[in-house]
Each structure stands twice: as structure tokens, then as C-alpha cells.
């Protein structure tokens, strides 16, 4: 659906050249929700904006449905953009137009008649849950409602692709969740290929199928969200994930605890309980569960457990060995 081949974007600032995107290649399949994550300044926003050529790449190709678009201009480019909706962190609504008029503007751009607009817009507004705000101006809406208008405008012309530029970064947790649900819902309902960028793994985890991680303009890692979460390769990925799967044990507990502290990670269907009780029986050790969490990513579980193992040294050693065989990952703390 979307193919980015060796994309580089360079900016020339005063006396210096900044390369925001460095040789990035990425393939996004039809109907996928693809997340691009990275800290601020990683180049993810610039990369996203090359897809609809708001930013022209310095080199590299952008293919949409196998058509190379990076040299498109004027009318040809506008035709392509009609099929690519985009939503923004700060909504970017036309303040002097009502909710209805904002969506109507998008449809006018596509050359839709007044009748078509009058028929289609109420449908879209009800889809995004804004039927009652049809005639309100953006200044009278909350952040979440504004983003819903942004979404309505972006999908008004039935695009094939939806680009989301940090769509929830200015919203509170609850609103974020409802906006993400809406994006996912639209993705499923319309089969619209969605590319979403965020600096938060939590958001990626919630709605994305696949994720690419960026750092300093490089694409450092990509894959299915579950794989990247359960088996992060790169330091920046590990850091980003740590913010979401946060298992901190209070210092006091670490001090008073005798024996070995071990962090176990379970993936997929591995059952937790038998492993622990088996170890206790087999190796004659006592095990205390200090902390634990099960996350569901793309519907699959990943469990993290911090346990303390106490007993004589050989038994502890043996139990750690047998645990290693039975869990996905084991880390001595």
C-alpha cells in the first residue's frame, strides 16, 4: 500500500544541514494500523509528512499503490492527497467555520455537490459522535471534540490512507482512549490504512498492529507490536517500553529481602502458576512474589513477575536454572 524507499530529508538551516530522516525504508500493508514511535526530534513527524508530500524527501521514493508519487505536482498531487486524510496534534480546524462547514470544505475540495455534502456530512458526524455539534464553531468544542472534527474532515472523502500526527498528545488520558478507539473503529469499518506517530508506546500498544521505532532520523527497529514489545532489540526501544511496562520495586523492599531477586517474563500462553509451584516443590526453595503484571498486546499476553527465591545456594542455583528453561526470559536483579 505505502512503500517508502531510502527516504532522506535534509533541512538547510543557517550554515548547517540537518538530516531529519536518514535513509529510511518502510512498507505498510493495506488496512494495517502502523505506528511510528520515537522521542521528540527523532524524525518521525517528518517521515510521516513525506507520505502526502507535505514534506518533499531530499532523496528516495514514495510509492502509493505501487505508483511513485514523489515528483507529483499541482493537480496530480492534489488527486493523490484526496485519497490521503490527515489529522494533527493541534487539530488545525478552520476556526471561522462551523463543524459542518469544516467537513463541507473537505468535500468541496473533492468537488462534491451541495446535495452530496448535505447527505454525507450528517452520516460522518454521527460516525464520529458529533451530531449535536453540527453548527458549533471549534472554539466552543473540547479538545477531544475538535479532534473528532479533524477525523471527520480527514475521512470525508473516503480516503485509502489516514495519517495521524500525534493525534492525542494534547488530550487527557480518557479522551485519548476514546479518540484511539474511534481511529481503530474507522480503520476496521472502512479498511483504511492508518499510519500513526506518537512518542508514547502506550498508544502504539493500544491500537497498532505494527510499529517502527525511530531514533535520530534512523529507523532502528520494526515489526509486529507484540514482537517489538516482548523482544526489543534496540536500547531506545527498551527505554520506550520501560515507560509503559513499569515494574519498580521499592528500595526498602530490595534492602530487607533475603535471597535472590529474579525477574521473569512470560509470553503467549505460558502458564505462570505451575512453573512457580513446580520449582518450589522440586528444589526445596521458598518463593515470594514481589511484583507482577500481565499486559495484553494485540490480544496476546505478556506477563512479568518479580520474585524472591530463598533457600540454600545450590537449591537457588538449581531453581534458577529450571526457571530459565520454562520462561521466555529471566533476569537477575
Amino acid at each position, binding site marked *: 500500500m505505502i512503500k517508502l524507499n531510502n527516504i532522506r530529508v535534509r533541512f538547510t538551516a543557517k550554515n548547517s544541514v540537518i538530516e531529519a530522516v536518514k535513509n529510511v525504508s518502510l512498507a505498510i500493508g493495506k488496512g494495517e494500523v502502523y505506528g511510528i514511535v520515537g522521542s521528540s526530534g527523532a524524525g518521525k513527524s517528518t517521515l510521516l509528512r513525506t507520505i502526502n508530500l507535505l514534506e518533499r524527501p531530499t532523496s528516495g521514493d514514495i510509492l502509493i499503490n505501487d505508483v511513485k508519487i514523489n515528483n507529483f505536482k499541482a493537480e496530480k498531487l492534489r488527486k493523490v492527497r484526496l485519497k490521503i486524510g490527515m489529522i494533527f496534534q*493541534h487539530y488545525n480546524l*478552520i476556526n471561522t467555520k462551523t463543524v459542518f462547514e469544516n467537513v463541507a470544505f473537505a468535500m468541496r475540495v473533492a468537488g462534491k455537490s451541495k446535495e452530496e455534502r448535505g447527505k454525507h456530512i450528517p452520516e460522518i458526524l454521527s460516525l464520529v459522535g458529533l451530531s449535536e455539534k453540527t453548527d458549533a464553531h471549534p472554539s466552543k468544542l473540547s479538545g477531544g471534540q475538535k479532534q473528532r472534527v479533524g477525523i471527520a474532515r480527514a475521512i470525508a472523502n473516503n480516503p485509502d490512507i489516514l495519517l495521524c500526527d500525534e493525534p492525542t498528545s494534547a488530550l487527557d488520558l480518557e479522551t485519548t482512549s476514546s479518540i484511539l478507539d474511534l481511529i481503530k473503529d474507522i480503520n476496521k469499518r472502512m479498511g483504511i490504512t492508518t499510519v500513526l506517530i506518537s512518542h508514547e508506546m502506550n498508544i502504539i500498544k493500544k491500537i497498532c498492529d505494527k510499529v517502527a521505532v525511530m531514533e535520530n532520523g534512523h529507523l532502528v527497529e520494526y515489526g509486529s507490536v507484540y514482537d517489538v514489545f516482548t523482544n526489543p532489540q534496540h536500547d531506545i526501544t527498551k527505554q520506550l517500553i520501560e515507560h509503559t511496562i513499569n515494574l519498580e520495586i521499592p528500595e526498602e523492599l530490595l534492602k530487607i529481602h533475603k535471597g535472590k531477586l529474579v525477574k521473569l517474563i512470560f509470553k503467549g500462553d505460558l502458564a505462570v502458576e505451575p512453573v512457580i509451584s513446580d520449582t518450589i516443590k522440586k528444589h526445596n526453595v521458598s518463593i515470594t512474589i514481589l511484583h507482577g503484571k500481565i499486559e495484553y498486546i494485540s490480544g496476546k499476553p505478556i506477563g512479568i513477575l518479580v520474585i524472591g527465591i530463598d533457600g540454600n545456594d545450590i537449591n537457588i542455583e538449581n531453581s534458577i536454572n529450571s526457571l530459565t528453561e520454562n520462561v521466555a526470559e529471566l533476569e537477575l536483579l
Partner: protein
Amino acid sequence: MTGEYLQGISQDLLKAFYETFQMVGIALLTSIIIGVPGGLFLYVTEKGLFFSNKFLNVISGFIINIIRSIPFVILLVLLLPLTQKIIGTTIGPLAASVPLAIASTAFYARLVWVSLCEIDKGVIEASISLGATPLLIITNVLLREALPGLVRGLTVTAVSLIGYSAMAGIVGGGGVGDLAIRFGYYRYETDVMIITVFFLILLVQLVQVLGDYAADKSNKK
């Protein structure tokens, strides 16, 4: 003061107001017709916008600034040959309208540019991402979002024009300001000067109140 005298003044005043309206009206109309596209041109040729063109942008900005930096009295005289060509005479309110129109158009074009600069670039970007043509963006986004600013700018221009038009007396343009200068200043008829200045204040206030009202009405946020 006799009744005849007062009647004389009121007739002079009436004529002066008519001339002021004529000059200011022509200049304002020109400002809207040429100043708005001028300000738009200055804006859309800026870096990062859809008709980005450094050369044209610098040139147009330069022309606007030259006109704005020439003192109006000098502009009035400088433009005499042009006025002669356009109007066929260099005397009278119609002739005075030519330099007034040129000065106020440049002034208003800059104000139009200022209001356009206030627009959130993100809104323009969103419109571009929708696939909108430049024409649609100009009519539906730029002019619409900037409308209150454009109205306020026009009010400021109108008030300045009333002031400028006083100098039109040099080419026999007449008008309220000129009346104040001729009778009050040159002929030491202080009472006439006070009366005309009083009416000028009233006129400016009226323009400002109307302008504020229109700006409020046009602000649909």
C-alpha cells in the same frame, strides 16, 4: 456672529464633508480592490507558502515600503504627472484621490499581510493536505480566517485617510481637514477651526465605532 455667517459655514462644511467622503471613498475602494490582492500576494509568495517566490516577494515588499516611506505631501507632488494623465487635471478632490488611493493601498496591503500572518500555519497545512487548490485556500481559509483583521485594518486605513485628506488642500482637493487649515489656520478664524475639528473628531469616532461593529460581526469564532 450673524445667522448668515453661520449658514455660510454650514454650507462650507457640507461641501467639505462631501469632498472628504469622495476622496476617502475612492481611496478606500481602491485599497480594497488592489490592497487585498496585494497583501495576499505578499503573503503567499513568502517562504514555505504555496506560491513561494523570494524574488517576487522581496520586490513587492519593497514597492509597498517605498510608497509607505514617502511623506504624503511629497507623494502628492511626485504623482502630479500621473494624476494629470489619469484624471486630466491636477486640481480638485478627484485629482487628490489619486495619491490618496496609492498611499492608502500600500498601507492597507501591509495591514492585510499582517492579518494573514496571524493565521495558524497548521490550518493552511491541513487544507493543503486535503488537496485544496490555492484558490480555494485563499477564498475559504485565508480571507475567511483573516476577515476580522481585514475589517479592523480597513478602519485604521479610513481614519488615516481622513487625516491625509487634509493635505489634499494643496492641490485644491478640499475636504473637512482642508477647511480647518484654510479658515482656521490661514485666516485666523479660530471658531471655524474649532467647529470643523469638532466634526472631524465626530467623523473619526463614527468610523471607528462602525469599524469595530463590523469587525465584531465578521468574527465568527
